[in-house]
């Protein structure tokens, strides 16, 4: 394939918007890591930092959307270029949502700290799921940068692990709440945190699906794994 367009300006516009998505991805990934750190250390300071940075995530989403509309209006992209821009648009929305989840975790951390029952609860058990989710997001961003469909497929498979961790954690929380009803309020906060982490994994999975769409032109959302694997062949 020819890598370059006849219009070098078009190339640089596509390149520019792609790298801004990566930049947003990097920021969001660090938001998730900070939020998880805030959770494991019960650090209100770190949690507040996450909440403050969220505004930057939102602003970047708006910038990228504006660039996308401008490229579509001016270049009328087709085929792979069009698929790339659509995928960037959806990826950006997913990344912004991950940013929201990070903020949500940070707020819950503050709420758990305020409730005073922080130390009683099994919050460290969320570490594994959190590591999985943020690792998956990083892999999705790497795969997006390299348009690596094989990596995208392995991300889709890995998301199931996070879902399993989530289910196990919910069962555990229920036993805590039954044993000591005073932990219910904080447990519910923690449940929301667990749900937020699980959602991060879902967003990483969505991004992986967009990679397959860009490269192969196949829409594999809601498709069974065997169909996805044959689309990538």
């Amino acid at each position, binding site marked *: *394939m*020819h*890598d*370059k*367009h*006849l*219009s070098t300006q*078009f190339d640089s516009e596509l390149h520019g918007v792609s790298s801004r998505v990566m930049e947003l991805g990097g920021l969001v990934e660090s938001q998730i890591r900070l939020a998880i750190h805030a959770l494991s250390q019960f650090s209100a300071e770190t949690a507040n930092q996450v909440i403050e940075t969220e505004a930057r995530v939102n602003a970047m989403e708006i910038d990228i959307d504006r660039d996308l509309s401008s490229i579509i209006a001016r270049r*009328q*992209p*087709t*085929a*792979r*270029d*069009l*698929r790339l821009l659509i995928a960037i648009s959806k990826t950006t929305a997913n990344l912004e949502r991950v940013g929201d989840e990070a903020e949500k975790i940070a707020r819950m951390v503050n709420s758990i700290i305020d409730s005073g029952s922080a130390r009683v609860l099994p919050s460290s058990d969320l570490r594994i799921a959190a590591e999985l989710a943020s690792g998956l997001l990083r892999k999705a961003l790497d795969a997006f940068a390299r348009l690596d469909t094989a990596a995208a497929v392995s991300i889709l498979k890995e998301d199931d692990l996070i879902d399993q961790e989530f289910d196990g954690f919910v069962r555990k929380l229920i036993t805590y709440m039954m044993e000591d009803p005073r932990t219910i309020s904080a447990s519910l906060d923690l449940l929301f945190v667990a749900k937020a982490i699980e959602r991060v994994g879902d967003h990483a999975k969505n991004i992986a699906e967009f990679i397959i769409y860009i490269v192969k*032109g196949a829409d594999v959302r809601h498709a069974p794994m065997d169909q996805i694997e044959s689309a990538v062949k």
Partner: protein
Amino acid sequence: MPSTITLPDNAPVLKAQSTNLDFYYGAFKALKGVTMPIYENKVTALIGPSGCGKSTYLRCFNRMHDLYPGHRYDGKIELYPDDVDILDHGVDPIEVRMRISMVFQKPNPFPKSIFENVAYGLRVRGEKSESYLEDKVEAALRAAAIWNEVKDRMTESATNLSGGQQQRLCIARSLATDPEIILFDEPTSALDPIATGSIEELIGEIKNKVTILIVTHNMQQAARVSDYVAYMYLGEMVEYGVTNDIFMKPKRQETEDYITGRFG
């Protein structure tokens, strides 16, 4: 590059088909084995870089090349439902042009009145009844969406009309003889965006009556108006398919490179 075609699912009725069509300008082989279906009441667009053979291909359909010295056709273009090969020497090119008319890049009204421009083909065919002519002219002008603009100016010279109006008049002229196929050779490249929009709108309307084959340099135009697209390069048909598939996910890399502007 093989000129293979994949027929789409639920393919509509065939109006014409070229099979292994070669065309020579003297020793120069301008078309190389082009096989392609043309579906009834659909718009088929031919795209490709300058010199790829798309206009040459289009012109084969009304035997326009017959005017070139040293031209030669190989292969056939069959017209359905009567299965006639329009390239056959026994077939009268005038008869072909009655059935397959053409609209050119530059509007080319005759230096006659608006009415006479549209009535011309019918008069050539021997039509004498003035009331019949009036009915046909009005119907053609209405179909070409220009009736309201010219109904009070029928005796004025057609050359007084604007470029966009002239082109719609030319479309009315080609519609008047009830052709089965209309060939458009870059019909809007000499027009401004508004006039272009009205011609594109018109193409969408008249395809209910007539089958359309259009050559365009404007890829977005092909994307907007056509049902099927053929990408041609160096006299060969590289890829043929449903317009959506060609513009979202072409099968061949050459097509992708061309439509995304990577060709060069």
